[in-house]
Structure formats: C-alpha cells, structure tokens
C-alpha cells in the first residue's frame, strides 16, 4: 500500500514543546514527581516516555523510573489473519505496585492497544493509578478509553494514517498525516 504524503502536523520544535507541556501537566496532576513511573508502549511510545522522563528530571530534579512494554502477546487480533507480529522485549525492572503509572504511546486511535497494555500492566502488579499520555489523539475510539494527557488532538478520517517519526527510531522528528492511496 502506498502512502501519499499529505501534511506535516508537528515539526521537531512543536513535538518537543508538546512533550514538555505533558511533563508539566503530569507533575501538576500528581503534585510532584514522587511515586511516579513511566511505561512506554513499543516501539515509539518508549522514546516519548524517555523524553517525558528527561523533562520531569529537568523540572523537578528527580529521576523517574521508565520502562518499556511490548503488548503483542495481549493483542485481541492475534488470532486473526493480520500478518505476523514480532514479539519484542518488555523491560519493566522496577516495582509498579502503589505507583502512579503513566502509560505512554505515540498515537491513540481505536484504544485497542491501550486495552492490551492495561491487561499486561495488571500482570506486573497493582499501581495506585494508571494515567495515559499520548503525543497524538486522532479519534475513532472503539473502546471506552480516553487519554489524560494529549500532545495534540488531530481530527482524522479512517482513510487517513498518522505517521509519527522520532529521531531515536526514524532519524527525524515529525508527525505526518497521509491518505491511504
């Protein structure tokens, strides 16, 4: 399937500003960074989580535990013929019990990835709360899930795709919206 480039929604500076604002909002909502931890969903959620973590450190001067979650084994479409998923590593080497856990992903769409992530997290312990931070919310939810912290709301049609590129993974920072061609 070829993608026709449509428009750049966020550039490098606006991505970083959005992440900084999310960091401020997380601190405000949780009254500081004590008892916080961050878990990014593979792949790009992990890098956004690391960036939020760095921003929190810059603001509060405190390290926040940051982990990575692979949700492949919890997907609800594993049994459907949707191509073969690759199982990647989950790395949560800290205790999530009684923490305020910020779950981080790049794009919030149907909500099914987040549903899978919530199931996975519960297998690791019982956080005091789980809050959701996403760089882009593009709408079209299929489950009763919403984000607590949003970098940018981008109304889309289902025919479009949102492509998040991050320096750590793609070599550049930008968010594009494209029409499936």
């Amino acid at each position: 399937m070829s993608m026709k480039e449509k428009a750049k929604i966020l550039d490098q500076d606006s991505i970083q500003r959005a992440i900084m604002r999310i960091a401020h909002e997380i601190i405000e909502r949780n009254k500081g960074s004590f008892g916080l931890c961050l878990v990014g969903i593979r792949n790009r959620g992990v890098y956004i989580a690391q960036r939020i973590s760095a921003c929190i450190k810059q603001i509060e001067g405190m390290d926040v535990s940051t982990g990575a979650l692979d949700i492949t084994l919890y997907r609800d479409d594993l049994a459907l013929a949707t191509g073969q998923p690759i199982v990647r590593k989950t790395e949560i080497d800290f205790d999530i019990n009684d923490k305020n856990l910020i779950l981080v992903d790049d794009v919030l769409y149907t909500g099914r990835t987040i549903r899978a992530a919530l199931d996975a997290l519960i297998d690791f312990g019982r956080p005091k709360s789980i809050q959701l931070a996403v760089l882009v919310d593009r709408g079209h939810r299929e489950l009763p899930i919403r984000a607590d912290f949003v970098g940018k709301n981008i109304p889309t049609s289902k025919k479009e795709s949102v492509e998040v590129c991050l320096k750590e993974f793609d070599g550049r920072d930008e968010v594009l919206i494209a029409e499936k061609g």
Partner: protein
Amino acid sequence: MSWTKKDLLGLEYLTPEEIELILNTAESFKEVSTREIKKVPALRGKTAVNLFYEPSTRTRVSFEVAAKRLSADVINIATETSSVKKGETLIDTGKNIQALKADIIIMRHNYSGAANMLARALEISVINAGDGWHEHPTQALLDIFTLKEKFGKIKGLNVAIVGDIAHSRVARSNIWGLTKLGAKVTLCAPEMLLPVGIELTGAKTSSDIDEVLKNADAVNVLRMQFERDEGAAFPEQLDYYKKFGITEERLVKAKKGIVVMHPGPINRGIEMSSGVADGVNSVILEQVTNGIAVRMAVLFLVSQAKEARQ
C-alpha cells in the same frame, strides 16, 4: 522476516534467518518467566498435546511449562497407558488428536523421521521433541540461545560436541544450527561413536579431547545413551571417562573461559565429573531455564503461521 511453517521438524529444514527469528523471539519471551505472574494470554484457547513415545522428563515438562505460560491448555499422553498399546498406528493416533480439535502436537518418538511423517499427514502443527537419531531441534535451539547469551554471537565460535555422536539427535540438530549460523563445529568421540560420513555436514572430527578443548569456546557434552546399547559397539564406561570424560584437570588445560553444556540427564563420572557439572564453567541449569523461552517462541511462531495460512 516472518514465520510460515506450521511445523518445527528439524534445523536442517530452516534458513539461518528462521533460526535467528526463533532466537530473537525467545529473547523477548525470557522476560515472562521473571514476572510474578508468569503468564501471557497469547495462546489462550489453544490446545497442545504432548505425545511421548519415549521417556522424557525435562523436555516434556519444559514444553508443558512453556505452553502453560502462553495460556494454552496442555494434555499429556503417555503412550504406555494409551491405545498405542492396543496397536494403534502413529497416524491414527495423530488424526484422532486432530479430530479432538487440538492445535499442536509435541511429539517424541524412537523412530527417525516419525515427526516428518506425522506432520505430512496432519493439518495441525507438529513440533519434533526428538525423533530417533534424527533431530531434537528445540534442544539445539536452546543450546545455541545459551551460547548467544554468553558470547553475544554465534558466527566464528568454536564449538566442540563430545561423546556419543552416532546415537545423538542433539548432536545432529546442533551441527545443522551452528554451521548455518557460522560457527565452527568439532566432533570429538571414540571412532566407534562417529557415524560414517558425518564430515559431509561441514563439521570436523577428532579423537583427541585435550587438543579440541584447547581451541573450543564451548563444549557440548552429550549423554552416553547406554539404553540404546543393544549389542552395538559401545565403549567401556570407565575407559570412556578416562579418555573423553570432562574433568577439572582437563579444563585447566582448556581454553580460558570455556563454556560447558550438557543436554541432561547427566551421567556423573561418565561424561563429566561432578566438579565440572556444578562448576563455574557449567551453564547446564541456564540451558534448562532458556529451554522454556525457546519453546515458548516455537509454540507461538508455529501457531501464528497456522493462523496466517487459514
């Protein structure tokens, strides 16, 4: 790279990329066993049947643990107490298990090629857990996984396989897997235990264990399978230990940091001394732990491949 085979029958039939895919997937699965809740829902609603025509503890239990950690249901069939005793053929047994709507058969059989034959006759997945002297692919995969963990790579490693090569499916699967990934394999055994033509696989042979150990990054010590000794040529036990047994004295002269592996169960005082089996060079129990991750990866991949075909 995606997995397309419904079965895992042997490493002979896999490409290097497919072997790497299993190893990488296993690396991700290893973490599941470190959790407090050691279970993921990936194979929920699937049924795996352990069909073992030969005695086995660690392979059967390892597969059972692996399948359960993926949330599959596991049924164990001991052929000693099944209709096999009444003369049911292997294919009939397999077709009945398929008719019960099981998804995966994990089979050990004393005849070489039994798994291949069953896989051809059935729609459902067949995983070879050891067939005669032919292959034992998951054992070799966990050996290679353990080596990769220790050395970071397989390419260029010198791996010695010592002992009863002739009767060993573990040796054959290891030779296939290691040479495909670029390791150099040396087989070391008394001549009567080296099968004719084994050099055709690309492995070197030797009967000088001390010389072999000097150059080996790792030595995989095979079990002497005395239960297969039915009048065939077999060395005398003490004589074998003296000439080929891996002892502390031999390891002193071996390559520094040499890794000692054994597929189990160990005959202490025949293939290796107790001091070596429990010593700092031994990774024997790590192999057992890694076996779960490797088998989880294989179960996951074959069941995904089947979904993709339907």
